Protein backbone atom coordinates (compact mmCIF):
# COMPACT_ATOMS: atom_id res chain seq x y z
CA UNK A 1 0.00 0.00 0.00
CA UNK A 2 2.63 2.58 0.89
CA UNK A 3 3.96 2.25 -2.64
CA UNK A 4 0.56 2.95 -4.17
CA UNK A 5 0.07 5.84 -1.79
CA UNK A 6 3.34 7.42 -2.77
CA UNK A 7 2.53 6.89 -6.42
CA UNK A 8 -0.76 8.72 -6.03
CA UNK A 9 0.94 11.48 -4.06
CA UNK A 10 3.51 11.71 -6.83
CA UNK A 11 0.72 11.91 -9.34
CA UNK A 12 -1.03 14.72 -7.53
CA UNK A 13 2.16 16.70 -7.14
CA UNK A 14 2.89 16.21 -10.83
CA UNK A 15 -0.60 17.40 -11.75
CA UNK A 16 -0.16 20.47 -9.60
CA UNK A 17 2.98 21.31 -11.52
CA UNK A 18 5.35 20.56 -8.67
CA UNK A 19 7.39 17.95 -10.47
CA UNK A 20 10.30 20.09 -11.45
CA UNK A 21 10.65 22.73 -14.08
CA UNK A 22 11.31 20.43 -17.03
CA UNK A 23 8.31 18.19 -16.44
CA UNK A 24 6.08 21.22 -16.04
CA UNK A 25 7.23 22.72 -19.33
CA UNK A 26 6.72 19.41 -21.08
CA UNK A 27 3.21 18.99 -19.67
CA UNK A 28 2.23 22.51 -20.66
CA UNK A 29 3.75 21.90 -24.08
CA UNK A 30 1.64 18.75 -24.40
CA UNK A 31 -1.46 20.70 -23.37
CA UNK A 32 -0.76 23.33 -26.05
CA UNK A 33 -0.43 20.55 -28.59
CA UNK A 34 -3.72 19.10 -27.34
CA UNK A 35 -5.58 22.38 -27.88
CA UNK A 36 -4.18 22.70 -31.38
CA UNK A 37 -5.04 19.11 -32.26
CA UNK A 38 -8.56 19.39 -30.81
CA UNK A 39 -9.43 22.63 -32.62
CA UNK A 40 -7.88 21.62 -35.94
CA UNK A 41 -9.46 18.20 -35.51
CA UNK A 42 -13.01 19.59 -35.66
CA UNK A 43 -12.43 20.81 -39.19
CA UNK A 44 -10.40 17.77 -40.18
CA UNK A 45 -13.33 15.61 -39.09
CA UNK A 46 -15.96 17.72 -40.82
CA UNK A 47 -13.91 17.77 -44.04
CA UNK A 48 -13.45 13.97 -43.77
CA UNK A 49 -9.69 14.14 -43.43
CA UNK A 50 -9.37 11.76 -40.45
CA UNK A 51 -7.79 8.90 -42.35
CA UNK A 52 -5.67 11.21 -44.50
CA UNK A 53 -4.28 12.53 -41.21
CA UNK A 54 -3.44 8.96 -40.18
CA UNK A 55 -1.65 8.34 -43.48
CA UNK A 56 0.43 11.52 -43.38
CA UNK A 57 1.31 10.80 -39.74
CA UNK A 58 2.69 7.38 -40.69
CA UNK A 59 4.42 9.00 -43.64
CA UNK A 60 6.56 11.11 -41.31
CA UNK A 61 8.60 8.01 -40.41
CA UNK A 62 10.82 7.99 -43.54
CA UNK A 63 11.28 11.76 -43.05
CA UNK A 64 12.41 11.30 -39.47
CA UNK A 65 14.87 8.61 -40.62
CA UNK A 66 16.19 10.77 -43.47
CA UNK A 67 16.51 13.73 -41.09
CA UNK A 68 18.57 11.53 -38.78
CA UNK A 69 20.84 10.39 -41.62
CA UNK A 70 21.32 13.96 -42.89
CA UNK A 71 22.13 15.27 -39.41
CA UNK A 72 24.63 12.45 -38.88
CA UNK A 73 26.26 13.12 -42.24
CA UNK A 74 26.78 16.75 -41.17
CA UNK A 75 28.47 15.44 -38.05
CA UNK A 76 25.61 16.60 -35.81
CA UNK A 77 23.85 14.44 -33.23
CA UNK A 78 21.22 12.46 -35.15
CA UNK A 79 18.49 13.43 -32.71
CA UNK A 80 18.48 17.15 -33.49
CA UNK A 81 14.86 18.22 -33.58
CA UNK A 82 15.05 20.67 -36.53
CA UNK A 83 16.45 18.00 -38.88
CA UNK A 84 13.98 15.35 -37.78
CA UNK A 85 10.94 17.63 -38.00
CA UNK A 86 11.98 19.10 -41.37
CA UNK A 87 12.35 15.59 -42.73
CA UNK A 88 9.01 14.59 -41.20
CA UNK A 89 7.25 17.59 -42.72
CA UNK A 90 8.78 16.93 -46.13
CA UNK A 91 7.68 13.31 -46.43
CA UNK A 92 4.27 14.11 -44.89
CA UNK A 93 3.65 16.72 -47.60
CA UNK A 94 4.86 14.28 -50.24
CA UNK A 95 2.40 11.70 -48.92
CA UNK A 96 -0.48 14.17 -48.98
CA UNK A 97 0.34 15.03 -52.60
CA UNK A 98 0.62 11.33 -53.47
CA UNK A 99 -2.81 10.58 -52.03
CA UNK A 100 -4.27 13.41 -54.08
CA UNK A 101 -2.55 12.21 -57.26
CA UNK A 102 -3.48 8.56 -56.83
CA UNK A 103 -7.13 9.29 -56.08
CA UNK A 104 -7.57 11.74 -58.97
CA UNK A 105 -5.32 10.29 -61.69
CA UNK A 106 -6.08 6.58 -61.26
CA UNK A 107 -9.32 4.69 -60.88
CA UNK A 108 -8.43 3.77 -57.29
CA UNK A 109 -10.84 5.26 -54.76
CA UNK A 110 -9.63 7.58 -52.02
CA UNK A 111 -9.57 4.88 -49.34
CA UNK A 112 -7.28 2.69 -51.46
CA UNK A 113 -5.09 5.71 -52.21
CA UNK A 114 -4.81 6.51 -48.50
CA UNK A 115 -4.07 2.93 -47.46
CA UNK A 116 -1.46 2.28 -50.14
CA UNK A 117 0.35 5.59 -49.55
CA UNK A 118 0.35 4.94 -45.80
CA UNK A 119 1.71 1.43 -46.25
CA UNK A 120 4.38 2.33 -48.79
CA UNK A 121 5.72 5.39 -46.95
CA UNK A 122 5.75 3.57 -43.61
CA UNK A 123 7.54 0.66 -45.28
CA UNK A 124 10.25 3.02 -46.55
CA UNK A 125 10.56 4.33 -42.99
CA UNK A 126 10.94 0.85 -41.55
CA UNK A 127 13.56 -0.14 -44.11
CA UNK A 128 15.51 3.07 -43.36
CA UNK A 129 15.23 2.44 -39.61
CA UNK A 130 16.63 -1.06 -39.98
CA UNK A 131 19.51 0.42 -41.97
CA UNK A 132 20.10 3.07 -39.30
CA UNK A 133 20.16 0.41 -36.60
CA UNK A 134 23.13 -1.27 -38.27
CA UNK A 135 25.07 1.99 -38.63
CA UNK A 136 27.69 2.64 -36.01
CA UNK A 137 26.74 6.18 -35.12
CA UNK A 138 24.88 5.88 -31.82
CA UNK A 139 21.79 7.81 -30.85
CA UNK A 140 19.51 5.45 -32.79
CA UNK A 141 17.49 4.71 -29.67
CA UNK A 142 16.42 8.38 -29.78
CA UNK A 143 14.33 7.69 -32.86
CA UNK A 144 12.13 5.22 -31.03
CA UNK A 145 10.27 7.96 -29.20
CA UNK A 146 8.84 9.22 -32.48
CA UNK A 147 6.82 6.03 -32.80
CA UNK A 148 4.76 6.10 -29.61
CA UNK A 149 5.86 9.41 -28.15
CA UNK A 150 7.69 10.31 -24.97
CA UNK A 151 7.94 13.21 -22.61
CA UNK A 152 10.98 11.75 -20.89
CA UNK A 153 14.19 13.34 -22.03
CA UNK A 154 12.41 16.22 -23.72
CA UNK A 155 14.39 19.42 -23.46
CA UNK A 156 12.93 22.71 -22.39
CA UNK A 157 13.58 24.50 -25.66
CA UNK A 158 12.03 21.59 -27.55
CA UNK A 159 8.86 21.87 -25.51
CA UNK A 160 8.76 25.62 -26.05
CA UNK A 161 9.26 25.23 -29.82
CA UNK A 162 6.37 22.76 -29.96
CA UNK A 163 4.13 25.08 -27.90
CA UNK A 164 4.83 28.01 -30.20
CA UNK A 165 3.96 25.88 -33.24
CA UNK A 166 0.73 24.80 -31.59
CA UNK A 167 -0.21 28.39 -30.74
CA UNK A 168 0.34 29.43 -34.36
CA UNK A 169 -2.04 26.66 -35.50
CA UNK A 170 -4.65 27.80 -32.96
CA UNK A 171 -4.21 31.37 -34.21
CA UNK A 172 -4.94 30.30 -37.78
CA UNK A 173 -8.12 28.50 -36.76
CA UNK A 174 -9.34 31.52 -34.79
CA UNK A 175 -8.57 33.89 -37.63
CA UNK A 176 -10.27 31.79 -40.31
CA UNK A 177 -12.99 30.40 -38.08
CA UNK A 178 -15.97 31.67 -40.08
CA UNK A 179 -14.61 30.52 -43.44
CA UNK A 180 -13.49 27.11 -42.14
CA UNK A 181 -16.89 26.49 -40.56
CA UNK A 182 -18.60 27.41 -43.79
CA UNK A 183 -16.64 24.98 -45.96
CA UNK A 184 -17.01 22.32 -43.29
CA UNK A 185 -20.80 22.48 -43.24
CA UNK A 186 -21.67 23.57 -46.75
CA UNK A 187 -18.84 23.28 -49.23
CA UNK A 188 -21.02 23.89 -52.29
CA UNK A 189 -22.67 26.97 -50.79
CA UNK A 190 -19.25 28.39 -49.97
CA UNK A 191 -18.03 27.69 -53.50
CA UNK A 192 -21.13 29.27 -55.05
CA UNK A 193 -20.64 32.40 -52.98
CA UNK A 194 -17.11 32.88 -54.22
CA UNK A 195 -15.17 31.81 -51.16
CA UNK A 196 -11.70 30.50 -52.02
CA UNK A 197 -12.79 26.97 -51.13
CA UNK A 198 -9.73 25.26 -52.55
CA UNK A 199 -7.35 27.46 -50.59
CA UNK A 200 -9.40 26.96 -47.44
CA UNK A 201 -9.49 23.22 -47.92
CA UNK A 202 -5.71 23.21 -48.34
CA UNK A 203 -5.46 25.32 -45.18
CA UNK A 204 -7.27 22.61 -43.22
CA UNK A 205 -4.88 20.03 -44.66
CA UNK A 206 -1.87 22.24 -43.87
CA UNK A 207 -3.06 22.69 -40.28
CA UNK A 208 -3.49 18.91 -39.96
CA UNK A 209 0.04 18.43 -41.28
CA UNK A 210 1.37 21.04 -38.82
CA UNK A 211 -0.30 19.32 -35.86
CA UNK A 212 0.92 15.90 -36.99
CA UNK A 213 4.53 17.00 -37.40
CA UNK A 214 4.47 18.91 -34.13
CA UNK A 215 2.78 16.07 -32.31
CA UNK A 216 4.98 13.12 -33.19
CA UNK A 217 7.60 14.06 -30.57
CA UNK A 218 5.04 13.79 -27.73
CA UNK A 219 2.30 11.45 -28.95
CA UNK A 220 4.18 9.48 -31.59
CA UNK A 221 3.42 9.09 -35.26
CA UNK A 222 1.41 5.90 -34.82
CA UNK A 223 -1.21 7.47 -32.55
CA UNK A 224 -1.15 11.22 -33.22
CA UNK A 225 -4.27 10.91 -35.39
CA UNK A 226 -6.19 9.97 -32.24
CA UNK A 227 -5.60 13.40 -30.77
CA UNK A 228 -7.06 14.87 -33.97
CA UNK A 229 -10.20 12.68 -34.14
CA UNK A 230 -11.14 11.75 -30.56
CA UNK A 231 -11.63 15.22 -28.96
CA UNK A 232 -13.97 16.44 -31.75
CA UNK A 233 -15.93 13.19 -31.48
CA UNK A 234 -16.26 13.76 -27.72
CA UNK A 235 -17.26 17.39 -28.26
CA UNK A 236 -20.14 16.22 -30.51
CA UNK A 237 -21.90 15.02 -27.35
CA UNK A 238 -21.78 18.44 -25.72
CA UNK A 239 -22.86 20.89 -28.38
CA UNK A 240 -24.21 21.15 -31.91
CA UNK A 241 -22.90 24.66 -32.27
CA UNK A 242 -19.69 24.83 -34.32
CA UNK A 243 -18.01 27.50 -32.19
CA UNK A 244 -18.77 25.86 -28.86
CA UNK A 245 -17.85 22.46 -30.25
CA UNK A 246 -14.45 23.76 -31.35
CA UNK A 247 -13.71 25.30 -27.95
CA UNK A 248 -14.83 22.14 -26.13
CA UNK A 249 -12.81 19.95 -28.48
CA UNK A 250 -9.71 22.07 -27.87
CA UNK A 251 -10.27 21.86 -24.11
CA UNK A 252 -10.68 18.06 -24.27
CA UNK A 253 -7.51 17.79 -26.34
CA UNK A 254 -5.60 19.90 -23.82
CA UNK A 255 -6.94 17.89 -20.85
CA UNK A 256 -6.11 14.57 -22.46
CA UNK A 257 -2.58 15.57 -23.38
CA UNK A 258 -1.93 17.20 -20.00
CA UNK A 259 -3.17 14.28 -17.88
CA UNK A 260 -1.65 11.72 -20.23
CA UNK A 261 1.76 13.38 -20.06
CA UNK A 262 1.47 13.57 -16.25
CA UNK A 263 0.57 9.89 -15.92
CA UNK A 264 3.41 8.76 -18.14
CA UNK A 265 5.79 11.01 -16.18
CA UNK A 266 4.88 9.23 -12.93
CA UNK A 267 4.52 5.62 -14.02
CA UNK A 268 7.41 3.89 -15.73
CA UNK A 269 6.88 1.78 -18.86
CA UNK A 270 3.99 3.86 -20.10
CA UNK A 271 4.49 5.22 -23.61
CA UNK A 272 3.22 8.82 -23.50
CA UNK A 273 1.24 8.64 -26.72
CA UNK A 274 -0.68 5.53 -25.72
CA UNK A 275 -1.60 7.01 -22.34
CA UNK A 276 -2.74 10.30 -23.86
CA UNK A 277 -4.94 8.40 -26.31
CA UNK A 278 -6.49 6.32 -23.53
CA UNK A 279 -7.24 9.44 -21.47
CA UNK A 280 -8.83 11.04 -24.55
CA UNK A 281 -10.91 7.94 -25.21
CA UNK A 282 -12.11 7.89 -21.58
CA UNK A 283 -13.25 11.49 -22.05
CA UNK A 284 -15.09 10.34 -25.16
CA UNK A 285 -16.84 7.49 -23.33
CA UNK A 286 -17.81 9.76 -20.43
CA UNK A 287 -19.12 12.32 -22.91
CA UNK A 288 -21.14 9.63 -24.65
CA UNK A 289 -22.92 8.90 -21.37
CA UNK A 290 -23.20 12.37 -19.87
CA UNK A 291 -22.95 14.88 -22.72
CA UNK A 292 -26.05 17.11 -22.85
CA UNK A 293 -26.31 17.25 -26.65
CA UNK A 294 -26.41 13.56 -27.53
CA UNK A 295 -25.29 11.66 -24.44
CA UNK A 296 -27.13 8.53 -23.37
CA UNK A 297 -28.41 9.73 -19.99
CA UNK A 298 -29.70 13.16 -21.14
CA UNK A 299 -31.27 11.37 -24.10
CA UNK A 300 -33.12 8.91 -21.85
CA UNK A 301 -34.30 11.74 -19.60
CA UNK A 302 -35.41 13.66 -22.67
CA UNK A 303 -37.33 10.66 -23.97
CA UNK A 304 -39.14 10.31 -20.66
CA UNK A 305 -40.08 13.97 -20.72
CA UNK A 306 -41.48 13.55 -24.23
CA UNK A 307 -43.54 10.57 -23.15
CA UNK A 308 -44.87 12.59 -20.22
CA UNK A 309 -46.14 15.25 -22.58
CA UNK A 310 -47.81 12.72 -24.86
Amino acid at each position, binding site marked *: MPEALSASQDFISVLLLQAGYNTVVVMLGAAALGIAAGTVGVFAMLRRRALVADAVAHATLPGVAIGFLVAVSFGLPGRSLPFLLTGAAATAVLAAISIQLVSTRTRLTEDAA*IASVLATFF*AVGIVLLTVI*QTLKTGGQAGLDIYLLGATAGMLRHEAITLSVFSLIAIGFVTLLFKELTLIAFDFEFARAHGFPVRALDLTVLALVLAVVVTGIRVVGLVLIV*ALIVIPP*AAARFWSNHAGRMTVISGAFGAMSAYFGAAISAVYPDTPTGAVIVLVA*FSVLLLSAVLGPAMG*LIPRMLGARKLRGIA
Partner: protein
Amino acid sequence: MTEFMQIDLPAMLTGTLAALVCAQIGNFLILTRQSMLGDAMGHVVLPGIVIAYVLTGLAATWVMLGGAFAAAMVSALLIEFLRRVARVEPSAALGAVFTAMFALGVVLLEQTGVARTSFDVHHILFGNVEGAIWPAATGLASLFDPVALKELPAQIGRLLFGLVVVSAVIALFFKELRVISFDPVFAATIGLSPRLFGTLIVSLAALAAVVSLEAVGVILLVAMMVCPPATARMLTDDLATQMRISIAAALTSGIFGYLIAAFLPSLLGFDLSLGAAGTIALLGGLIQLAAMIAGPKRRPARAV
Protein backbone atom coordinates in the same frame (compact mmCIF):
# COMPACT_ATOMS: atom_id res chain seq x y z
CA MET B 1 21.50 -25.51 -47.76
CA THR B 2 20.80 -26.40 -44.16
CA GLU B 3 21.15 -22.76 -43.18
CA PHE B 4 18.73 -21.75 -45.93
CA MET B 5 16.23 -24.36 -44.73
CA GLN B 6 16.56 -23.32 -41.10
CA ILE B 7 16.53 -19.55 -41.44
CA ASP B 8 15.51 -18.29 -44.86
CA LEU B 9 12.85 -20.76 -45.89
CA PRO B 10 10.58 -20.39 -42.83
CA ALA B 11 10.90 -16.59 -42.88
CA MET B 12 10.20 -16.41 -46.60
CA LEU B 13 7.28 -18.78 -46.16
CA THR B 14 5.85 -16.65 -43.34
CA GLY B 15 6.07 -13.41 -45.30
CA THR B 16 4.69 -14.95 -48.47
CA LEU B 17 1.81 -16.78 -46.80
CA ALA B 18 0.77 -13.60 -44.99
CA ALA B 19 0.94 -11.72 -48.30
CA LEU B 20 -1.30 -14.33 -49.94
CA VAL B 21 -3.92 -14.34 -47.17
CA CYS B 22 -4.12 -10.55 -47.02
CA ALA B 23 -4.06 -9.90 -50.78
CA GLN B 24 -7.01 -12.20 -51.49
CA ILE B 25 -9.41 -10.56 -49.10
CA GLY B 26 -7.92 -7.16 -49.98
CA ASN B 27 -9.51 -7.43 -53.43
CA PHE B 28 -12.93 -7.15 -51.84
CA LEU B 29 -11.88 -4.45 -49.40
CA ILE B 30 -10.74 -2.10 -52.17
CA LEU B 31 -13.84 -2.78 -54.26
CA THR B 32 -16.14 -2.01 -51.32
CA ARG B 33 -14.12 1.11 -50.44
CA GLN B 34 -12.99 -0.27 -47.12
CA SER B 35 -9.24 -0.35 -47.70
CA MET B 36 -8.48 1.24 -44.35
CA LEU B 37 -10.40 -1.52 -42.63
CA GLY B 38 -7.38 -3.78 -42.94
CA ASP B 39 -5.29 -1.16 -41.16
CA ALA B 40 -7.96 -0.76 -38.49
CA MET B 41 -8.24 -4.55 -38.00
CA GLY B 42 -4.50 -4.82 -37.56
CA HIS B 43 -4.72 -2.29 -34.74
CA VAL B 44 -7.88 -3.28 -32.88
CA VAL B 45 -7.06 -6.95 -32.40
CA LEU B 46 -3.87 -6.18 -30.44
CA PRO B 47 -5.45 -5.73 -26.97
CA GLY B 48 -7.55 -8.86 -27.52
CA ILE B 49 -4.50 -10.94 -28.33
CA VAL B 50 -2.55 -9.57 -25.35
CA ILE B 51 -5.42 -10.08 -22.88
CA ALA B 52 -6.10 -13.61 -24.14
CA TYR B 53 -2.41 -14.41 -23.88
CA VAL B 54 -2.12 -13.01 -20.34
CA LEU B 55 -5.26 -14.78 -19.13
CA THR B 56 -4.42 -18.19 -20.54
CA GLY B 57 -0.64 -18.05 -20.73
CA LEU B 58 -0.95 -19.72 -24.12
CA ALA B 59 0.12 -18.52 -27.54
CA ALA B 60 -2.14 -21.07 -29.20
CA THR B 61 -4.10 -20.32 -32.36
CA TRP B 62 -7.56 -20.58 -30.80
CA VAL B 63 -6.58 -18.32 -27.89
CA MET B 64 -5.34 -15.61 -30.21
CA LEU B 65 -8.32 -15.96 -32.53
CA GLY B 66 -10.72 -15.79 -29.59
CA GLY B 67 -9.12 -12.71 -28.07
CA ALA B 68 -8.84 -10.99 -31.42
CA PHE B 69 -12.44 -11.81 -32.27
CA ALA B 70 -13.65 -10.36 -28.97
CA ALA B 71 -11.62 -7.18 -29.51
CA ALA B 72 -12.94 -6.84 -33.05
CA MET B 73 -16.54 -7.21 -31.78
CA VAL B 74 -16.04 -4.57 -29.08
CA SER B 75 -14.56 -2.22 -31.68
CA ALA B 76 -17.39 -2.82 -34.13
CA LEU B 77 -19.93 -1.99 -31.41
CA LEU B 78 -18.07 1.17 -30.39
CA ILE B 79 -17.81 2.33 -34.01
CA GLU B 80 -21.51 1.69 -34.61
CA PHE B 81 -22.34 3.54 -31.40
CA LEU B 82 -20.31 6.60 -32.41
CA ARG B 83 -21.75 6.59 -35.92
CA ARG B 84 -25.38 5.97 -35.10
CA VAL B 85 -25.82 7.61 -31.71
CA ALA B 86 -23.42 10.53 -31.95
CA ARG B 87 -23.50 10.83 -35.75
CA VAL B 88 -19.72 11.05 -35.77
CA GLU B 89 -18.40 10.96 -39.33
CA PRO B 90 -17.65 7.26 -40.15
CA SER B 91 -13.93 7.55 -40.85
CA ALA B 92 -13.44 9.61 -37.69
CA ALA B 93 -15.34 6.99 -35.68
CA LEU B 94 -13.11 4.30 -37.15
CA GLY B 95 -9.99 6.37 -36.41
CA ALA B 96 -11.04 7.08 -32.83
CA VAL B 97 -11.73 3.44 -32.02
CA PHE B 98 -8.78 1.78 -33.70
CA THR B 99 -6.22 4.16 -32.20
CA ALA B 100 -7.75 3.76 -28.73
CA MET B 101 -7.72 -0.04 -29.00
CA PHE B 102 -4.14 -0.03 -30.23
CA ALA B 103 -3.13 2.33 -27.40
CA LEU B 104 -4.76 -0.07 -24.94
CA GLY B 105 -2.83 -2.93 -26.49
CA VAL B 106 0.46 -1.05 -26.24
CA VAL B 107 -0.08 -0.16 -22.58
CA LEU B 108 -1.13 -3.74 -21.77
CA LEU B 109 1.96 -5.08 -23.56
CA GLU B 110 4.22 -2.86 -21.48
CA GLN B 111 2.39 -3.22 -18.17
CA THR B 112 1.86 -6.97 -18.19
CA GLY B 113 5.42 -7.74 -19.13
CA VAL B 114 4.36 -9.58 -22.27
CA ALA B 115 6.56 -7.14 -24.13
CA ARG B 116 9.63 -8.73 -22.64
CA THR B 117 8.61 -12.34 -23.18
CA SER B 118 6.75 -13.03 -26.35
CA PHE B 119 6.20 -10.18 -28.76
CA ASP B 120 6.86 -6.49 -28.41
CA VAL B 121 5.53 -3.30 -29.92
CA HIS B 122 8.31 -3.13 -32.48
CA HIS B 123 7.44 -6.55 -33.80
CA ILE B 124 3.78 -5.62 -34.00
CA LEU B 125 4.53 -2.39 -35.87
CA PHE B 126 7.47 -3.42 -38.01
CA GLY B 127 6.95 -7.14 -38.27
CA ASN B 128 9.29 -9.89 -37.28
CA VAL B 129 9.40 -12.08 -40.33
CA GLU B 130 12.95 -13.09 -39.44
CA GLY B 131 11.66 -14.47 -36.12
CA ALA B 132 10.34 -17.56 -37.92
CA ILE B 133 13.08 -20.17 -37.77
CA TRP B 134 13.07 -23.93 -38.25
CA PRO B 135 16.00 -25.38 -36.29
CA ALA B 136 14.81 -28.93 -36.89
CA ALA B 137 15.52 -28.71 -40.61
CA THR B 138 18.58 -30.54 -41.81
CA GLY B 139 18.12 -30.25 -45.56
CA LEU B 140 15.59 -30.66 -48.33
CA ALA B 141 14.60 -34.06 -46.95
CA SER B 142 13.13 -32.32 -43.88
CA LEU B 143 10.25 -31.14 -46.06
CA PHE B 144 9.08 -34.76 -46.21
CA ASP B 145 9.94 -35.64 -42.65
CA PRO B 146 6.83 -35.48 -40.45
CA VAL B 147 8.92 -35.17 -37.29
CA ALA B 148 10.79 -32.14 -38.61
CA LEU B 149 7.62 -30.64 -40.14
CA LYS B 150 6.02 -30.68 -36.70
CA GLU B 151 8.75 -28.31 -35.55
CA LEU B 152 7.86 -25.65 -38.12
CA PRO B 153 7.16 -22.28 -36.45
CA ALA B 154 3.59 -22.11 -35.10
CA GLN B 155 2.79 -18.95 -37.07
CA ILE B 156 3.20 -20.87 -40.33
CA GLY B 157 0.48 -23.26 -39.21
CA ARG B 158 -1.79 -20.34 -38.30
CA LEU B 159 -1.13 -18.64 -41.64
CA LEU B 160 -1.86 -21.86 -43.54
CA PHE B 161 -5.11 -22.23 -41.61
CA GLY B 162 -6.04 -18.62 -42.48
CA LEU B 163 -5.08 -19.11 -46.10
CA VAL B 164 -7.20 -22.25 -46.47
CA VAL B 165 -10.25 -20.65 -44.82
CA VAL B 166 -10.02 -17.36 -46.72
CA SER B 167 -9.40 -19.04 -50.09
CA ALA B 168 -12.15 -21.61 -49.56
CA VAL B 169 -14.79 -19.09 -48.51
CA ILE B 170 -13.94 -16.78 -51.40
CA ALA B 171 -14.05 -19.67 -53.87
CA LEU B 172 -17.35 -20.88 -52.46
CA PHE B 173 -19.11 -17.51 -52.55
CA PHE B 174 -17.22 -15.96 -55.45
CA LYS B 175 -20.30 -15.09 -57.52
CA GLU B 176 -22.13 -13.56 -54.58
CA LEU B 177 -19.11 -11.57 -53.45
CA ARG B 178 -18.58 -10.30 -57.00
CA VAL B 179 -22.13 -8.98 -57.28
CA ILE B 180 -22.03 -7.44 -53.80
CA SER B 181 -18.71 -5.72 -54.53
CA PHE B 182 -19.62 -4.22 -57.86
CA ASP B 183 -23.33 -3.59 -57.50
CA PRO B 184 -24.82 -3.84 -54.00
CA VAL B 185 -28.16 -2.43 -55.16
CA PHE B 186 -28.57 -5.08 -57.84
CA ALA B 187 -27.40 -7.70 -55.34
CA ALA B 188 -30.23 -6.72 -53.01
CA THR B 189 -32.80 -6.95 -55.79
CA ILE B 190 -31.82 -10.55 -56.59
CA GLY B 191 -32.12 -11.48 -52.94
CA LEU B 192 -28.51 -11.38 -51.75
CA SER B 193 -28.12 -9.65 -48.43
CA PRO B 194 -25.44 -6.94 -48.70
CA ARG B 195 -25.33 -6.92 -44.92
CA LEU B 196 -24.63 -10.65 -44.65
CA PHE B 197 -21.92 -10.65 -47.29
CA GLY B 198 -20.52 -7.38 -45.98
CA THR B 199 -20.11 -9.09 -42.63
CA LEU B 200 -18.48 -12.04 -44.38
CA ILE B 201 -15.89 -9.76 -46.01
CA VAL B 202 -15.16 -8.01 -42.71
CA SER B 203 -14.87 -11.36 -40.87
CA LEU B 204 -12.41 -12.71 -43.41
CA ALA B 205 -10.39 -9.50 -43.15
CA ALA B 206 -10.34 -9.95 -39.38
CA LEU B 207 -9.16 -13.54 -39.72
CA ALA B 208 -6.43 -12.49 -42.15
CA ALA B 209 -5.38 -9.72 -39.76
CA VAL B 210 -5.16 -12.03 -36.76
CA VAL B 211 -3.09 -14.76 -38.37
CA SER B 212 -0.76 -12.19 -39.96
CA LEU B 213 -0.38 -9.64 -37.15
CA GLU B 214 1.92 -11.47 -34.81
CA ALA B 215 3.81 -13.16 -37.63
CA VAL B 216 4.51 -10.19 -39.88
CA GLY B 217 3.30 -7.01 -38.14
CA VAL B 218 0.73 -4.36 -38.97
CA ILE B 219 2.57 -2.74 -41.85
CA LEU B 220 2.97 -5.81 -44.01
CA LEU B 221 -0.65 -6.64 -43.31
CA VAL B 222 -1.89 -3.26 -44.55
CA ALA B 223 0.47 -3.19 -47.52
CA MET B 224 -0.53 -6.66 -48.69
CA MET B 225 -4.25 -6.01 -48.23
CA VAL B 226 -4.13 -2.98 -50.52
CA CYS B 227 -1.09 -2.96 -52.83
CA PRO B 228 -1.47 -6.26 -54.75
CA PRO B 229 -5.23 -5.78 -55.33
CA ALA B 230 -4.66 -2.13 -56.30
CA THR B 231 -1.94 -3.28 -58.72
CA ALA B 232 -4.32 -5.79 -60.27
CA ARG B 233 -7.07 -3.20 -60.55
CA MET B 234 -4.80 -1.14 -62.83
CA LEU B 235 -4.48 -4.11 -65.18
CA THR B 236 -7.93 -5.65 -65.57
CA ASP B 237 -11.68 -5.19 -65.25
CA ASP B 238 -12.43 -8.82 -64.57
CA LEU B 239 -12.56 -9.83 -60.92
CA ALA B 240 -11.25 -13.38 -61.41
CA THR B 241 -8.27 -12.04 -63.36
CA GLN B 242 -7.82 -9.31 -60.76
CA MET B 243 -7.62 -11.95 -58.03
CA ARG B 244 -5.06 -13.97 -59.98
CA ILE B 245 -2.89 -10.92 -60.68
CA SER B 246 -3.07 -9.82 -57.04
CA ILE B 247 -1.96 -13.29 -55.94
CA ALA B 248 0.95 -13.11 -58.39
CA ALA B 249 1.89 -9.64 -57.10
CA ALA B 250 1.70 -10.86 -53.49
CA LEU B 251 3.87 -13.90 -54.28
CA THR B 252 6.42 -11.72 -56.07
CA SER B 253 6.53 -9.22 -53.18
CA GLY B 254 6.83 -11.98 -50.58
CA ILE B 255 9.54 -14.05 -52.23
CA PHE B 256 11.64 -11.32 -53.83
CA GLY B 257 11.09 -8.87 -50.97
CA TYR B 258 12.53 -11.42 -48.59
CA LEU B 259 15.43 -12.32 -50.89
CA ILE B 260 16.30 -8.64 -51.39
CA ALA B 261 16.22 -8.00 -47.64
CA ALA B 262 18.28 -11.06 -46.81
CA PHE B 263 20.88 -11.05 -49.56
CA LEU B 264 21.05 -7.77 -51.49
CA PRO B 265 23.09 -5.68 -49.01
CA SER B 266 25.83 -8.27 -48.65
CA LEU B 267 25.85 -8.93 -52.43
CA LEU B 268 26.50 -5.22 -52.92
CA GLY B 269 29.16 -5.31 -50.25
CA PHE B 270 27.32 -3.24 -47.63
CA ASP B 271 27.42 -4.21 -43.99
CA LEU B 272 23.73 -3.42 -43.47
CA SER B 273 20.58 -5.33 -42.67
CA LEU B 274 17.17 -4.64 -44.13
CA GLY B 275 14.01 -5.60 -42.28
CA ALA B 276 12.19 -8.24 -44.32
CA ALA B 277 8.63 -7.07 -43.50
CA GLY B 278 9.41 -3.50 -44.53
CA THR B 279 11.16 -4.61 -47.71
CA ILE B 280 8.30 -6.89 -48.75
CA ALA B 281 5.77 -4.10 -48.10
CA LEU B 282 7.90 -1.60 -50.00
CA LEU B 283 8.25 -3.93 -52.98
CA GLY B 284 4.47 -4.33 -53.00
CA GLY B 285 4.14 -0.53 -53.08
CA LEU B 286 6.67 -0.19 -55.91
CA ILE B 287 4.89 -2.81 -58.01
CA GLN B 288 1.67 -0.86 -57.48
CA LEU B 289 3.44 2.36 -58.50
CA ALA B 290 4.60 0.73 -61.74
CA ALA B 291 1.05 -0.45 -62.43
CA MET B 292 -0.33 3.03 -61.70
CA ILE B 293 2.10 4.56 -64.20
CA ALA B 294 1.71 2.05 -67.02
CA GLY B 295 -1.30 -0.18 -66.35
CA PRO B 296 -3.87 -0.26 -69.19
CA LYS B 297 -6.82 0.20 -66.81
CA ARG B 298 -5.27 2.87 -64.62
CA ARG B 299 -7.49 5.78 -65.68
CA PRO B 300 -10.55 6.78 -63.66
CA ALA B 301 -13.86 6.16 -65.38
CA ARG B 302 -14.99 9.26 -67.24
CA ALA B 303 -18.18 10.85 -66.09
CA VAL B 304 -20.84 10.43 -68.78
